[in-house]
């Protein structure tokens, strides 16, 4: 009764990274199966109905659903097998063997290579340790976005957004357009967590205040949310006495960060301590040969274009594994130096171009990214942690590489 399937590349997750991986692997000529947990592929793109996607990947500005639609169409043309509403119960990474539950039945799948494209989840309210009551009316931004954009429901009448991540900023505008009153966006850092363009287009356009260095310190409401206490915070995020102010709201939307979904996908895969995602090389390979990872389960990216591009590379390399093309498993560490926060990749495989994505630890008016061992200096202006610095190092420069490479940002 358990069906036994075989495939070349198995892609787990049908968001931007997974779709791109499935597509590139399929175009390389191998058999591809994609496991999607929802009814349809697309992931969070389906509910990101705003525009601003695709400028790099498609050279055209698209909305989320349009971006997804293109990848879906291309997947259909390249006969990617999709198992929707499927749940991965167990992965044996060493043997590339997976157990899957779906309404269609229960499967085991023997693959030759696996691409993990499981994305990220939102940090839930409980993890923020905000004291007070536990009323209804508190939503992670993705849930609120899904309700409004796909389910035709409104969460409430008066909202406050906690956290200025992109999805929080987008939801501030979205709820305003749909007639809710958004009293502000509260951010505990002294700068916004999302892209500057979103601060401008989602908040400034609609006169929604952005409270930097502020946070919610108490939640009140017996049944539905009634009010929250907002306080200014100092450099250590400690509330400053005398700055507290109550906001009467029935809706609190949280945009307090994304967490790579790496759990239950194989204990033996190395996790990058800072990114909190799979530690991959520039071939998108994890610490286990033949297991690749791309997208927000590697590190939380700022643009879906980067996620899709990484998925594409992961798919290509997974296909090569299946086709037994000679690949090296050389992994030279790429080490964080000064001012470097999130950094992809964690390792360098010299045969592939090195695409670097990094987030600064703090905003910098100007600075230079330095990779001393590779003789590379990349100056930049107006760098902020919310926007990744991204550049490519040609593989020709990597050929002689033997020792770890340090990457740092100097002012």
């Amino acid at each position, binding site marked *: 009764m358990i069906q036994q399937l075989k495939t070349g590349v198995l892609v787990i997750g049908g968001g931007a990274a997974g779709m791109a991986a499935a597509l590139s692997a399929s175009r390389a000529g191998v058999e591809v199966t994609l496991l999607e947990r929802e009814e349809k592929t697309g992931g969070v793109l389906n509910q990101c109905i705003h525009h601003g996607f695709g400028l790099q990947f498609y050279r055209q500005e698209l909305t989320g659903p349009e971006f997804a639609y293109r990848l879906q169409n291309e997947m259909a043309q390249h006969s990617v097998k999709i198992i929707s509403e499927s749940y991965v119960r167990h992965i044996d990474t060493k043997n590339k063997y997976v157990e899957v539950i779906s309404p269609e039945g229960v499967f085991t799948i023997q693959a030759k290579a696996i691409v993990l494209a499981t994305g990220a989840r939102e940090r839930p309210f409980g993890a923020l340790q905000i004291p007070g009551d536990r009323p209804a009316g508190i939503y992670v931004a993705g849930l609120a976005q899904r309700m409004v954009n796909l389910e*035709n429901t409104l969460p409430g009448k008066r909202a406050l957004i906690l956290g200025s991540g992109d999805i929080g900023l987008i939801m501030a505008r979205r709820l305003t357009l749909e007639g809710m009153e958004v009293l502000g966006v509260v951010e505990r850092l002294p700068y916004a967590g999302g892209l500057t363009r979103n601060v401008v287009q989602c908040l400034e356009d609609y006169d929604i205040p952005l409270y930097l260095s502020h946070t919610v310190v108490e939640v009140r409401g017996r049944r539905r949310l009634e009010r929250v206490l907002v306080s200014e915070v100092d450099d250590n995020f400690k509330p400053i006495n005398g700055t507290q102010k109550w906001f009467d709201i029935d809706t609190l939307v949280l945009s307090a960060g994304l967490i790579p979904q790496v759990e239950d996908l194989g204990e033996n895969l190395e996790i990058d301590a800072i990114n909190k995602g799979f530690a991959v090389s520039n071939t998108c390979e994890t610490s286990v040969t033949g297991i690749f990872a791309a997208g927000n389960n590697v590190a939380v990216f700022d643009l879906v274009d980067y996620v899709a591009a990484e998925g594409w590379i992961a798919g290509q390399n997974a296909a090569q594994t299946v086709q037994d093309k000679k690949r090296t498993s050389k992994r030279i560490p790429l080490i964080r130096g000064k001012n470097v926060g999130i950094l992809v990749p964690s390792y360098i495989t010299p045969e592939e171009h090195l695409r670097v994505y990094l987030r600064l630890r703090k905003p910098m008016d100007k600075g230079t990214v330095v990779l001393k061992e590779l003789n590379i200096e990349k100056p930049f202006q107006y760098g902020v942690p919310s926007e990744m610095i991204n550049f490519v190092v040609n593989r020709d420069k990597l050929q002689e590489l033997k020792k770890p490479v340090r990457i740092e940002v100097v002012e």
Partner: protein
Amino acid sequence: MKGHITCTVCPVGCKILVVSKPNGEYEISGNRCPRGKQYAIDELFSPKRILTTSVKVLHGDVPLVSVRTDAPIEKSRIFELMEKIKSISVEAPVNVGDVLVRNIDGMGTSLVATRKVEKNGSPLENCQISG
């Protein structure tokens, strides 16, 4: 007179400095691409935005179809156009790129569907919501 404008053409978010010169022209700096120059001028004289939202679908597998304007519309008219959009509905099926409202702003801008909606329901659909 001078002012900073944050360019939103692309995610880079250039801080563009606009300085008005005595001859009535503007000196523009800080943009890393030519599009930024045009943006800064537009933003000063007639700010425009792409509007994205949803339109009600009748007899579809989902209740809403996401839409966008096919060109930027005047920022000051966003709420006026939202009212118009709230009042309309379309019959399923809908395809990506379908023009749902032609010339919605009187300036030649159309409202275009950005997702596909099939007819009828899926297992979790058909939940009514009180109005």
